[in-house]
């Protein structure tokens, strides 16, 4: 989230598309209701189903799953054609005026630089025209046809209301009404907030779905302002934290990248991370990358990371492929390339695409370790549970360790919420039996391995032997000590060059990342967390809920990264002169000498408006990007591509049906179904009564939604003879689920390219352990293919068939 949960109440329009906030985040959704009641806001919902969010919306429009880019490109077309954009904002704060290189182009569904064989782009043409100093050229008059804004106009010109309706199945009048509501927030003092979640990410074009709305928001001047922003409503309680700390195959803490094979040494690695400003005088904050990196290595390896060994650069693993994501991991498992797998609080058998493939993969492992408070399906994949998990135990040679872990109520620590708040929590009781904390278990494995390497030697043990472990209790490090390590401290007296005096004494906890050095005199385990645990104490444990003007900032409640800033890009809440666009809800204001307001400025606190420094300080040009340069796999502008399994041809460019940059493994491609056998569009989702595969273990939640079902429209149900509450078999090329049917008015057939298209909804929450009734799990059906940038699986749009049937026969 760029903004806070409470800030939603400042919106004039709330658009929920690519998510179902009322269902998945009810307590955050209260601020939508607050916006409606206290701010007269309109709630707009665009979704394939009439959802719980839609039930309290002012306007609802249906959309076929997997066509959001077409819809949003149509919105951009509408805004540009009607000139309903926030002109001053777009000119000053976005790259609309910058001139794009001559070589860049788009034709028949492909951008310039496509390589058919590798399914990847050479992105060198996706950039600005640079002047002799290396700065991007600009035309503030927008006369140059190569200006980003003009290329964008041209790119979205194909997405007329007719075309949108043809692709998305949204009736034209409904589409246009949504456009009108969105356009109303182009006024400088009006804001729209976009609330989205997995409904956008879980597509082969997931990242571009989000980019499309981000572009709409830039055109409307809605980023950085109160009641605006791009608000990704994240899933698990600390999924933001795990992302921040870089628990992803290619990441390091604080959004730094693990080196690639081609980055053979630190200098080569740093060459791609110089972030030289692309416009004069810009902040381009990533220029400090080296400080963050060296401080991290000092935190990780302590005294063993020195200038002489390039701060132990070689001790980090390097990547030969962009990602070792879950889809690749299970491909490797199925190919016999993996020996062991550790699932910490994670249930891949239910959570990952193509459950059959997951089960086959796990069966090929030598060992599987699960660490969980609950008895998960994954830990019992080898056991026969009848049709919901048919397994021949005797044939499965995998050794399985099921390790009992304490839960949230039984430990101290911090979680990062969707609004980037780090909140500390306290232990209330001991765990059951001999359950132990994740920290204790990981430490136990670490100590045993380190001991084995000390005794026996073995493959390159240096990083393992040198990783810092200076905890008071090495067997179970105290969370406070770990938090301090992430925050970072001075390793030597830090001298302020301005005064030539010691500003920070050696050993002192740092106040913020501005103190970090690249000479080995500072350590910080996660630079963006610097400031969370200072000499003043644990900032994450703060409980002062005071909220100036009740504007939804609460600056002294817990602590937010970065630098306790609650609204990202908040410099853009004020006009180029520093006056708030919306005087009723200012975030920060220039008072003549500095930036003041209710939030920490996302900007140099004394940088004058006249200096022309852009508000998007992490970007090298200082501007919000309507043209993404080379950062996206499939193009600098979003383009509509059909899901990998789709009932129709791509009417824009039949030869480029799907995302041309999607990575598809051969066996996964072979497991795609065609519309002749699987004619209905399916989408998976969550219900508010349940959380993933956990709450079926909680009796109350099992009572509230006891049994697996699908949602099916009345028309299709009638056609197929399916009765309300009756048994159905839903099948994809990959498997079948036998469950109950909910015949509902909330899903209606949509006219897509002249043909009625039916959508089937598959809630995900059931399995074969826990207290709810036994189920298969919707991922029995889903395809193993991901977004071209992130490899997030395409759970939201795939093909199935549905038939009336009888109850599954128990084994």
């Amino acid at each position, binding site marked *: 989230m760029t903004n806070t949960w409470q800030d939603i109440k400042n919106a004039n329009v709330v658009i929920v598309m690519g998510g179902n906030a009322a269902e998945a985040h009810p307590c955050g959704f209260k601020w939508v209701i607050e916006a409606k009641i206290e701010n007269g806001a309109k709630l707009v919902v665009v979704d394939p189903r009439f959802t719980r969010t839609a039930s309290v919306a002012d306007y609802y429009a249906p959309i076929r799953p997997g066509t959001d880019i077409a819809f949003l490109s149509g919105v951009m077309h509408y805004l540009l054609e009607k000139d309903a954009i926030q002109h001053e904002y777009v000119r000053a704060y976005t790259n609309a005026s910058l001139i794009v290189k001559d070589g860049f182009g788009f034709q028949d569904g492909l951008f310039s630089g496509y390589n058919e064989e590798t399914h990847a782009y050479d992105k060198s043409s996706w950039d600005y025209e640079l002047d002799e100093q290396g700065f991007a050229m600009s035309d503030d008059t927008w006369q140059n046809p190569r200006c980003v804004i003009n290329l964008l106009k041209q790119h979205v010109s194909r997405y007329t209301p007719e075309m949108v309706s043809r692709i998305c199945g949204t009736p034209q009048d409904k589409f246009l009404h949504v456009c009108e509501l969105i356009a109303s927030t182009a006024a400088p003092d009006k804001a729209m907030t976009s609330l989205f979640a997995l409904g956008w990410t879980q597509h082969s074009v997931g990242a571009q779905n989000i980019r499309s709305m981000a572009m709409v928001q830039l055109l409307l001047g809605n980023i950085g302002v109160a009641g605006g922003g791009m608000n990704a409503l994240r899933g698990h309680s600390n999924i933001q934290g*795990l992302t921040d700390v870089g628990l992803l195959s290619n990441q390091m803490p604080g959004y730094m990248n693990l080196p690639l094979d081609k980055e053979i040494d630190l200098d080569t690695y740093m060459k791609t991370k110089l972030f030289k400003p692309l416009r004069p005088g810009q902040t381009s904050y990533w220029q400090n990358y080296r400080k963050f990196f060296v401080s991290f290595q000092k935190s990780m390896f302590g005294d063993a990371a020195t200038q002489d060994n390039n701060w132990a650069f070689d001790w980090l693993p390097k990547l*030969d492929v962009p990602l070792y994501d879950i889809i690749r991991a299970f491909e490797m498992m199925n190919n016999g390339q993996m020996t062991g797998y550790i699932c910490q609080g994670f249930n891949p058998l239910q959570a990952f695409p193509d459950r059959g493939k997951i089960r086959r993969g796990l069966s090929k492992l030598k060992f599987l370790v699960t660490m969980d408070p609950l008895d998960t399906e994954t830990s019992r994949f080898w056991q026969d549970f009848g049709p919901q998990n048919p397994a021949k135990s005797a044939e499965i040679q995998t050794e399985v360790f099921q390790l009992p872990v304490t839960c949230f109520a039984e430990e101290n*620590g911090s979680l990062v919420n969707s609004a980037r708040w780090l909140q500390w929590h306290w232990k209330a009781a001991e765990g059951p039996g001999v359950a132990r904390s994740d920290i204790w278990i990981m*430490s136990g494995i670490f100590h045993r391995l380190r001991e084995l390497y000390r005794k026996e030697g*073995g493959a390159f043990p240096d990083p*393992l032997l040198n990783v810092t472990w200076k905890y008071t209790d090495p067997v179970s490090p105290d969370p406070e000590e770990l938090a301090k390590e992430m925050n970072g401290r001075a390793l030597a007296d830090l001298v302020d060059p301005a005064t030539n005096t010691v500003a920070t004494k050696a050993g002192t906890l740092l106040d913020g990342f501005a103190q970090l050095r690249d000479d080995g005199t500072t350590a910080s385990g996660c630079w963006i967390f610097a400031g969370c645990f200072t000499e003043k104490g644990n900032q994450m444990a703060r409980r002062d809920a005071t909220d100036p003007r009740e504007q939804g900032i609460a600056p002294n409640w817990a602590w937010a990264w970065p630098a306790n800033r609650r609204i990202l890009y908040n410099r853009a809440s004020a006009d180029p002169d520093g006056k708030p666009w919306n005087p009723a809800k200012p975030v920060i204001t220039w008072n003549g000498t500095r930036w003041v307001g209710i939030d920490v400025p996302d900007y140099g606190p004394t940088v004058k408006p006249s200096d022309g420094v852009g508000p998007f300080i992490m970007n090298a040009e200082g501007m919000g990007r309507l043209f993404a340069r080379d950062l996206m796999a499939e193009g600098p502008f979003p383009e509509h591509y059909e899901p990998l399994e789709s009932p129709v041809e791509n009417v824009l460019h039949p030869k480029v049906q799907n995302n041309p940059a999607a990575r598809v493994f051969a066996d996964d491609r072979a497991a795609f179904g065609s519309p002749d056998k699987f004619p209905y569009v399916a989408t998976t989702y969550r219900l508010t009564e349940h959380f993933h595969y956990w*709450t079926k273990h909680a009796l109350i939640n099992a009572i*509230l939604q006891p049994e697996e079902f699908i949602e099916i429209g009345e028309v299709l149900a009638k056609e197929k003879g399916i009765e309300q509450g009756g048994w159905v078999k839903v099948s994809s090329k990959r498997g079948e689920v036998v469950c109950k049917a909910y015949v509902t008015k909330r899903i209606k057939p949509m006219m897509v390219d002249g043909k009625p298209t039916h959508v089937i909804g598959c809630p995900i929450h059931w399995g074969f*352990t826990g207290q709810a009734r036994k189920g298969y799990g919707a991922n029995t059906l889903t395809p193993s293919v991901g977004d071209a940038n992130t490899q997030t699986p395409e759970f939201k749009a795939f093909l199935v068939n549905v038939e009336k049937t009888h109850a599954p026969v128990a084994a």
Partner: protein
Amino acid sequence: MALTRREFIKFTGLGLAASGLGVLGFGASGEAQAAAVRPFKLTHATETRNTCTYCSVACGILIYSMGDRAKNARSNIIHIEGDPDHPVNRGTLCPKGSALLDIVHAPTRLKAPRYRKPGGTEFEEVSWDFALDRIARLMKDDRDKHFIAKNAAGTTVNRWTSVGMLAASASSSETSYLTWKVVRSLGMVVFDNQARV
């Protein structure tokens, strides 16, 4: 049978506008309450502040447990409700958060390490030492066998691809940081979390 006078927890600062709840209900009739009203169950419970374990709204919660944490008593969580001070949830909770008690006490909470032999049809309970020793042995044997120190081009790559890990997305950042250190110091690259599913 005599009416007993009961002590009631004094709740202050609930932040409710308009009529304070104190003047409603039975407050005006003094300390005696209707004999039939169920005794208030949190009177002597210990309150602990925590964060809901489910979604990333991260609602503040109050965990109530029996016992005062004296050495000779084991705390037992008896009730969980929303923290009214929390700026986002302001005391509210969704159907999952309202039922947190049932996940804490789920009958399928694991209580001891269990092990399943190759080809086995059941789990057997094992000691922590057995489990962790065996896991470390399996990991080391595989790492020594499959660790890639240099790639074909001779670049030092120091990666291990044949054992992977999925990290818990409901565990604390402190846990995740420690996990990162362990995983990467082994050179592990097949490493992911639940951000995408």
